[in-house]
């Protein structure tokens, strides 16, 4: 009540809330991080369990169906089984590695120097 007048009590309240919030985060950042980390970990754990199973099962089923239609037994099933395993592992790897933009190999926000340098070096090795 000391500074400013009644005209903008909302703005002042907003300021005070922001300040209090910043203070709280500053005082116990570890606890906040811990909680969000636990939440994310749980979410991740429940996510990846099923990823591999479904990928393998679905791909194998698809292979079987393709064989059934085209009469290419057993090749479709064999090839798609391995593709399914690969796709499932890829999904799990990406979920775990937190490459949250799953398809494609670049990590978000890592288009910077580090990755590009490494990639160029890799390309040079290949050539």
């Amino acid at each position, binding site marked *: 009540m000391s500074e400013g007048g009644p005209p903008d009590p909302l703005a002042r309240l907003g300021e005070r809330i922001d300040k209090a919030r910043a203070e709280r985060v500053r005082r116990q950042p570890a606890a906040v991080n811990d909680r969000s980390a636990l939440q994310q970990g749980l*979410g991740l754990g429940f996510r990846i369990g099923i990823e591999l199973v479904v990928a393998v099962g679905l791909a194998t089923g698809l292979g079987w169906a393709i064989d059934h239609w085209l009469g290419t037994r057993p090749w479709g099933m064999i090839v798609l089984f391995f593709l399914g395993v690969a796709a499932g592992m890829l999904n799990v790897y990406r979920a775990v590695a937190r490459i949250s933009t799953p398809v*494609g190999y670049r990590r978000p926000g890592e288009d910077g120097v580090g990755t590009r340098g490494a990639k160029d070096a890799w390309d040079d090795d290949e050539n």
Partner: protein
Amino acid sequence: MAIELHPLEQFTIEPLIPIHIGRLDLTYTNSALMMTIAAVLITALTVLATRRAALVPGRWQSIAEMIYEFVADMIDTNIGQGGRQFFPFIFTLFMFILFANLLGMIPFSFTFTSHIIVTFALAALVFILVTAIGIARHGFHFLSLFVPHGVPKVLLLLLVPIELLSYFIRPFTLSIRLFANMLAGHTMLAIFGGFAASVGLFAFFPTAIDILLVGLELLVAVLQAYVFAILTCLYLNEAIHLH
């Protein structure tokens, strides 16, 4: 109510109001009833709680605002720029699944997310929407999603099918995850409940396990809604920003 002795009996669909239009069977079932209840409750919570919005929120307004901020936060961290326009969609999806799972925890109610056709419909909706947005935003360039960067051309022959497969598998993982978790959890609850009913004097042990399981199931109910929503965010993020 009769005691359900068969653990899978709780998942039976019962027609309530038969509706047949032409050859379409649009019968109103117990599943549809629970969906209606969920939708009504969500609307009631969000509309009534904020109808008399106060600067200092009351209990109900607080709940509504907390959920709102939770979803908004999730969108900001997972989609970032241009994500807010999908807020209504993700909020609806999250609330619908959350209420479905939680309503299913009430004894003798029905968990419609334990039916794969329901979860698959939701997941297919997400998948189609994400793909459509990706194509609308980027046109042909959207297909670059399936071509990893910096890979020798020969390997692309192998990698592109894998990428395609891992993309088209999404609606299935999304739906099976939710459905399997709900189905397994509720079946387990019913099995231990059946144990308790059949062993007489020793009913204490299965009952104790059941009580613990209810806690676990509540966690799973909330977590699965969260996982579904966050994966939708991640998929949308990818379609919008491409890499």
